[in-house]
């Protein structure tokens, strides 16, 4: 009996050692994931069922926070609409624009370095400074852009001061800082084997056919990456919309003043702004957590959909 029982504990010890070794290698990621994602996610779920003002002890309130966020908070609708609008329009235009600029620069024969720098530099501008500059440039009354448009006889929009134009103005700002995507697309485009283009040319392919059948299949993983990271980033869109709204509104900012994000007419209000207002201005932690989870679920759903279907970007067997 003893002879037959002895290998099992030894095997178990061996397996345990192996598992510990694997865990050791995985531990930095595991710790990071647990501390910065797992715990916050569990805590967010927990607090979404609590009344908690960050001073007193939390008390269980059932589904009240969820009911409040989903049915009684009038700003949730506009904030969600704006966020989704930005996700669809801004991400799509950024990818198209970034790819377009990348394509142009890889084709430029001379002065490519200059153009690369010129298109990349705006990306280095701090988001707040860039937004301040844009609001100044696009001021409907005193901004140089409208003065030029006026001189040319073109009707000038009110940009950040018009609810119809505020989000497109933010998209313009994001396109100005397209440097990050341009660099990624340039790298992907330069990585496409030249032989494939030569072979396509020998087959009589035109510019569009070369793009469609050579370039596109080679860069689709990068496009997918750009779309997924763009969606996630835009779901968290906060700083530029807040700064633009505050500055364009002209409302004084200082101790004691009440600043509402979303100017004009909630057109730049995003879900992350609402989460901040609820959580760190009103200290309505429960509702802020419920709202965060809504945002998380939407972001996860969109990302999963993109990854599963790959948005038609990758071949089926890839």
């Amino acid at each position, binding site marked *: 009996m003893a002879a037959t029982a002895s290998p099992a504990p030894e095997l178990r010890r061996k397996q345990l050692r192996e598992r510990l070794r694997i865990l050791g290698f995985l531990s930095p990621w595991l710790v990071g994931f647990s501390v910065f994602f797992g*715990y916050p996610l569990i805590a967010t779920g927990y607090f979404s069922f609590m009344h908690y003002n960050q001073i007193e002890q939390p008390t269980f309130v059932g589904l009240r926070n969820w009911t409040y966020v989903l049915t009684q908070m009038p700003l949730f609708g506009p904030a969600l609409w704006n966020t989704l609008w930005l996700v669809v329009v801004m991400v799509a235009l950024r990818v198209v624009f970034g790819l377009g600029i990348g394509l142009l620069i890889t084709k430029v024969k001379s002065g490519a370095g200059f153009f690369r720098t010129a298109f990349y530099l705006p990306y280095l501008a701090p988001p707040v400074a860039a937004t301040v500059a844009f609001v100044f440039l696009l001021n409907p009354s005193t901004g140089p852009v409208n003065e030029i448009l006026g001189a040319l006889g073109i009707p000038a929009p009110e940009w950040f001061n018009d609810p119809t134009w505020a989000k497109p103005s933010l998209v313009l700002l994001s396109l100005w800082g397209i440097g990050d995507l341009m660099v990624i697309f340039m790298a992907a485009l330069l990585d496409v084997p030249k032989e494939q283009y030569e072979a396509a040319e020998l087959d009589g392919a035109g510019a569009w056919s070369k793009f469609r059948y050579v370039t596109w299949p080679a860069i689709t993983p990068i496009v997918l990456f750009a779309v997924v990271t763009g969606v996630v980033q835009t779901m968290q869109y906060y700083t530029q919309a807040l700064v633009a709204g505050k500055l364009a509104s002209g409302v004084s900012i200082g101790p004691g003043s009440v600043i509402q994000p979303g100017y004009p007419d909630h057109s730049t209000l995003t879900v992350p702004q609402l989460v901040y207002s609820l959580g760190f201005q009103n200290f309505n932690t429960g509702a802020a957590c419920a709202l965060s989870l809504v945002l998380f679920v939407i972001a996860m759903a969109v990302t999963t959909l993109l990854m599963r279907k790959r948005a038609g970007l990758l071949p089926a067997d890839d």
Partner: protein
Amino acid sequence: MPLSRPGVRTRPRLGPRRRPRIRARTGLTVALATAGLLAAGCANPSVGSDRDDPTRPVTLTFWHGWSDASEVKAIDDSIARFEKLHPNITVKAVGNVSDDTMNQALRAGGSDAPDVVSSFTTNNVGQYCSSGMWADLDPFLKKTGVDKTKVFPKTLLDYTQYRGRQCALPLLADAYGLYYNKDAFAEAGITRPPRTMSELKRDAVKLTRRTQDGGYHRLGFMPNFRLYQNSPDRLFAQWGPRYFDRNGKARLAEDPATRDFLTTQRGLIDAQGGYRATEKFRTTFGDEMSSQNAFLRQKVAMHMDGEWRGLMLKEAKAPFRWGVAPMPVPDDQADAYGRGYLTGTIAGIAHSSRHQNAAWELVRFLTVDTDQVVAFANAIHNIPSTKAALASPHLDADPDFRTFLRIATDPRSTALPPSNNGDMYVTSLQDFSYAAEAGRVPDLDAGLRGLDARIDADNLQSEN
């Protein structure tokens, strides 16, 4: 029949009962760790103490919102006077602190958290008191023999407490009135400032000067809610509103004053060119606190502002003659002329302070001591916040300043009622008013009912 191929390692069979036990143990450990972390995360960040000896050497941290050089000097001078009276107490003052910063810092706790706190707005008093974030001052008042009802005017005392909890005291007050350009008045043939809303509208139209392209050289009076201090609650004060009923429910829809207020404001805008045109003109205005202020630059001939603006106009050597008067009142309340909106800076003790008795000495000095209140009020041109200081012969005798003193002491002047939800109901009113002034509320009555429902839902949500 072998279950595995030779050479291929198989997982040892642990038996049917052991695996669940390990899983259960792991699950329990994770659950306990998570519960521990959650409990640690929501524990009260730090607990203060009121058992300190205020005669022992101590350093207090005082957070305030003043940032202008002259104002910072005035508060620093006040602190120097305090330290002279209390040589054992050193005060470390930190300026330009917003309510958001203070709120977040007091919740986070830590050794650098302030002992004495102040805020430029009374909007959050309900939240400070109900959450216990600012300590209840009644025990300190009692301990040191201060009868608050004898020291402070009732309106100011009301806006510094919530449901019987006095967690703040007034540290000077602000009153709002009408600044007007006397030169523009003379040019338009207007002999005195308007007293009713009809007069305001009539005079505003007379004072407005348009450009050929449909823009403006000058607007008579810009009532737009996003202009500088023009928030809806401040203008609404001229109607003497009551925001909540006895049960704490919002009652804006049932009060005809609300409808009249919004209609009057929109009428003022329409009479001077409409919302779009006036808003476009507003985008040409410079910063409120700079030399590009629209009233100082004569882009508006009349302007609602606080008493501090007078000092700023003098310091900026305004290139025109100006005067001050109470804000006009609704036509059907003409006898209430003289009232205005009141607010003010408030001071209190952070719940986390471990030197609350020493902190109280500073709060008491700043808010109760008549000589200090008068000196500070004169220095920064604010309304003194105690009865004794208001009657002091040493107060600034400037007639413009005296106008604001009269507004502040007018019994019909009103302040915002505190709410446990802080300023969220003010924010909701602002939101609604922005839509109303832009003409985006087709049915005002239905809109106001919706506003009440929103305020009630927000208040309910913030309650325990």
